[in-house]
């Protein structure tokens, strides 16, 4: 992880903005009108929530170099914080709940990030594991968090903003898309600033970073804070826009690993990678179940599916770490560069530093 992944293509600025424009029109205009409810409900909305969580984890792990195994905890904190804010302070608009829930997750994230100030290597990862177990325990144990539901289940309120409500599949998709777009752009700006370079300096060489005057304490805690904030907001989307009924058990260690795997497969230290990885993690099980059913028929039941999914994901993680540690996004960039050469369009070679 000694490279600063490029965050924008080396295409000309005009072509680049046309591309972004087309993508925006498709995402905001075409899909909500033409896409099926299934596509938006079961594929795109969870994709958006997971992608935002992966962006958050990428800030911490990909850029600032601290491995976290507790993402699901901050996911859960976001969801439950927003739920309680909505329940107990009904005057606040939902969008403000969302942001405040992010700050609550950030505060918890900073607390569990504290050990990273004194410890290196695996120890901070162990601390985030503690967050994972503690949060799940607290949410199940204390009825207050779930308004005294015996099993800690919460029913999310309908999404609404400025008088409009977003209850349809398309509405919830659009709401998520808007939130994720804004959050990603802000994160990108942050990473391109001095702060982002500080993250990378801490990741690449802590002592050298300190020598050139990077404030380690602030930088690490900020990384934990920003990361948990984003994951918390993603958790709100997950609970309010995607599942709408959530229980603490849904935010278990497997969910944390899933988010970690997204950024490994997609590409560490790349925001585009987070989106690619999330797309892969969401689509892959659907593809695998179709493929398995087509090839093996009845033998391929849900148990076999789950196990083979585990095997393939695990093998992919190892394969990516060995052959392409920069993940899918590096493959994608190479692919685009190859297309560019084929069509004879003059473009710079992709460089990674």
């Amino acid at each position, binding site marked *: 992880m000694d490279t600063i992944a490029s965050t924008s293509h080396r295409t000309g600025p005009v072509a680049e903005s046309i591309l972004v424009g087309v993508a925006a029109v498709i995402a905001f205009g075409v899909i909500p009108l033409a896409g099926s409810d299934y596509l938006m409900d079961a594929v795109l909305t969870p994709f958006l929530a997971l992608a935002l969580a992966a962006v958050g984890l990428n800030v911490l792990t990909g850029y600032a170099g601290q491995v976290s195994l507790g993402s699901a905890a901050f996911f859960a904190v976001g969801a439950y914080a927003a739920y309680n804010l909505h329940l107990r302070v009904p005057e606040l608009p939902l969008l403000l709940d969302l942001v405040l829930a992010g700050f609550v997750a950030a505060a918890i994230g900073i607390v569990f990030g504290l050990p990273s100030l004194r410890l290196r*290597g695996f*120890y901070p990862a162990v601390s985030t594991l503690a967050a994972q177990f503690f949060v799940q325990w607290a949410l199940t144990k204390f009825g207050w968090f779930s308004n005294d539901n015996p099993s800690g289940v919460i029913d999310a309120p309908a999404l609404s903003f400025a008088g409009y409500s977003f209850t349809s599949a398309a509405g919830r998709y659009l709401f998520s898309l808007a939130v994720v777009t804004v959050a990603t752009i802000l994160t990108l700006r942050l990473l391109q600033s001095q702060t982002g370079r500080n993250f990378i300096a801490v990741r690449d060489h802590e002592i050298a970073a300190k020598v050139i005057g990077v404030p380690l304490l602030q930088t690490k805690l900020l990384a934990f804070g920003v990361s948990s904030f984003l994951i918390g907001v993603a958790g709100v989307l997950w609970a309010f826009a995607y599942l709408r009924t959530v229980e603490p058990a849904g935010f278990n260690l497997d969910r944390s690993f899933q988010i970690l795997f997204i950024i490994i497969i997609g590409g560490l230290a790349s925001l585009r990678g987070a989106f690619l990885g999330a797309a892969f993690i969401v689509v892959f099980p659907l593809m695998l179940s179709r493929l398995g059913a087509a090839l093996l028929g009845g033998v391929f039941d849900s148990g076999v599916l789950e196990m083979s999914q585990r095997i393939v994901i695990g093998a992919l993680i190892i394969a990516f*770490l060995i052959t392409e540690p920069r993940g899918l996004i590096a493959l994608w960039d190479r692919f685009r560069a190859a297309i560019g050469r084929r069509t004879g369009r003059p473009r710079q070679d992709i460089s990674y530093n």
Partner: protein
Amino acid sequence: MFDYQFLIEVLVGGLLSGVMYSLVAIGFVVIYKTSGVLNFAQGAMLLFAALTFVSLVERGVAFPLALLATLAIMVALGVGVERAVLRPLVNQPPITLFMATLGLSYVIEGAAQLLWGTQVHGLDIGISDVPLDIAGVFISQFDLFAAAVAGSLVTLFALFFRITRTGLSFRAVADDPFAALAVGLRLQRVWAIVWTVAGIVAFVAGLLWGARLGVQFSLSLVVLKALPVLVLGGFDSIAGAIVGGLLIGAIEKLAEVYVGPLVGGGIEAWAAYVVALAFLLVRPSGLFGQKLVERA
């Protein structure tokens, strides 16, 4: 009136279950010491070994034969992991290797259950779990047996590391991989052996844990119990794994019994982590871990 007898019972129960944690932790330490990898797949290996053994026995394979077959499979797994995962990732940062073992644990867990099914298997290794009454304190016979197994395993390792040539090369690699390479030790062979040893430790631990909990998926989660033990004892010390395991076992039970009721119980899941982390803030290299000289 404070019930001391109950306290002692809880304490002894905790210490003995701590032995089981140590058993898992030793598997980690062996690998960490020689290859610097925190092997998250240790729990999956434990599940795999226990599940393979139980399934073989259930399919009518004789007990000793099943034992041998499982051992052979664990050896193959150790060698396979070295070839397929460690060798290509040589010289990568520890965090990368750690993430690779995360992937590995998914593969092994999935494979184990795909091969042998997901149902819970009972495992009877012929040790009755009738509590012994020693001076008014009830102690589980099974726990005592587990403690004896762990004790002899550790003695065996200590002798192995001390006396044999292979043990010597382990210590050399642990001490300084580059120097070990320079004097002609075959690092890859050492790693393959180390992973095999860890596989065998996982097998023993799997048998004991399996007999206690039943052989099922949750067996692989004992890895999560071992992490605080490692943090407390130091990642690279077998003695630390033992003492850490005992401490964590005792603390966990005491916390559950005496602190748990104050906050609603169920704190076993994270109490060990909190204690381990709090301890770390005071002594970052654990109880017995090597001090890292770092000028920061």
